[in-house]
């Protein structure tokens, strides 16, 4: 069949639905953020001038950075093993990564609340083993949020890293060995640099996704662990300040889009789905 413009009309239904229920509503948010009895940047000025909002923005970036580093440290060794074991074993192990990946975020967050609560499973074991006399406070604080968010986002890191590592020719590492490099040296000077696009892609992706996180910090965080997405929800649900909620949303959206623009220079999002097919 000739490839030509005759198929273009098939795009129409999807574009109409996206236009009506995605692009137009987002445009509405943009408009709300700059329009209040006339065009004004007042609410943006308010964000910059108010210490609380700047603190929340700072905390959001801090949390995202913590989660990204934890996910990289945990994800790299696992991705390396996934990419280098026999394909049949790798397929089995990928299921262990993909099952939580496809489980509802609220379910995964709840699981960690059960594990980390003051009467939770982890504390039951710590007390039973005599490692602590009173239950530790593992939930409703920053540590809890970092654990929960790292858990939710780790599969993104692992799948990104593994997809890049699978493309690294094992012969290159063998060549380093045969030229006298130790295993560590061969890893550090050949494999690690070749996996750099995966590290860049994975960290960027996890960092960007962390910035907009809502469910896990809202349920697992303490009163001071507020992230920008939670602030947006509060402005909509409780303060009923829609124009301010819109302003915060536009700021979050702008940061996210810039992040993804950088991300697309190193990685395509579709590669995450190679393991799902």
């Amino acid at each position, binding site marked *: 069949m000739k490839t030509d*413009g005759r198929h273009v009309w098939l795009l129409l239904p999807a574009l109409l639905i996206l236009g009506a*229920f995605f692009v137009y*509503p987002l445009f509405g948010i943009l408009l709300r953020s700059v329009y209040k009895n006339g065009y004004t940047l007042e609410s943006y000025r308010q964000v910059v001038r108010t210490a609380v909002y700047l603190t929340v923005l700072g905390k959001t970036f801090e949390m995202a950075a913590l989660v990204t580093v934890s996910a990289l440290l945990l994800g790299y060794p696992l991705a390396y093993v996934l990419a280098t074991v026999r394909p049949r074993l790798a397929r089995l192990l990928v299921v262990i990564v993909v099952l939580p990946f496809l489980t509802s975020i609220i*379910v995964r967050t*709840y699981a960690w609340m059960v594990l980390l609560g003051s009467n939770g*499973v982890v504390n039951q074991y710590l007390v039973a083993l005599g490692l602590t006399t009173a239950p530790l406070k593992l939930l409703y604080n920053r540590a809890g949020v970092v654990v929960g968010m790292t858990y939710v986002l780790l599969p993104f890191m692992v799948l990104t890293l593994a997809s890049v590592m699978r493309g690294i020719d094992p012969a290159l590492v063998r060549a380093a060995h045969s030229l006298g490099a130790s295993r560590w040296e061969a890893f550090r000077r050949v494999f690690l640099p070749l996996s750099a696009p995966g590290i860049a892609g994975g960290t960027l992706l996890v960092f960007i996704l962390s910035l907009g996180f809502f469910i896990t910090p809202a349920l697992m965080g303490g009163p001071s662990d507020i992230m920008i997405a939670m602030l947006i929800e509060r402005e909509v649900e409780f303060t009923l300040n829609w124009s301010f909620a819109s302003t915060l949303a536009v700021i979050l*959206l702008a940061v996210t889009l810039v992040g993804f623009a950088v991300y697309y220079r190193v990685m395509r999002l579709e590669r995450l789905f190679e393991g799902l097919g």
Partner: protein
Amino acid sequence: MIGAEGQRTGPGTIALVAMAVVVLAFLIAPVVIIVLVSFSGADYLSFPPPQLSLRWYSRFFGTSVWRQSIVVSAQVATLTMVFATVLGLAASLALVRGRFRGKGAVYALLLSPMIVPTIITAIALYFFFARLKATGSILAMALGHTVLALPVVVIIITATLQGFDLRFELAALSLGASRLTALRRVTLPLIAPGVVSAALFAFLTSFDELLIPLFLAGVEVQTLTVRIWNSLLLEVDPTIAAVSSFLIAVTCVVLGASAMLRRRTD
């Protein structure tokens, strides 16, 4: 690499494998533990459960509000599946077969709901539907989820179409089939596993998602995820373990079915 090519396994390799095993345990343990504690007979969630029972399941399936939520979630997810698959299949055909200007931009637009933080999409739709006084409707939630599921469907179906040998369709055309007949009798049956898989993932995307229904649900019409959210704000109720296990089971069914479909194509 590891264990391959008869290399000796050094301490570094052992540490690496140990680390990978620990991380795998970290990934799977919470899911397994939630399923196990959901069968607990005790009043609180302890692991391992002191005795087994189905009391939390009977509370889950025996409470009318929970049963209503299953129906709402299933309705929203089914509508989402139908919308997203039809729209996504058509769009994917255009993207893979068509050659037109701005294709890259269209593709990026179709994937963009994956990039925009869901909280933003959710409040944008909330403002939109609130103005139309249409919150609390199944259709509104399904349309919101269609937007979120569309990228998933497009990614899976375009990948399937790229692996499809166009010569089968050309053969049908050269034997006198019309374009529509060739599509219906040759192409669609061949790409069916990919399309069904995409549909299942679209269903799951909706069934698992919280934020769109959190803003669009009404007092009466609430999905399972919204009910979980509301009860978690109050206390960690063991019934949620049973509800969670139900959602995990749905995920397993979708994963298993798509794996079977893939094996059939290979």
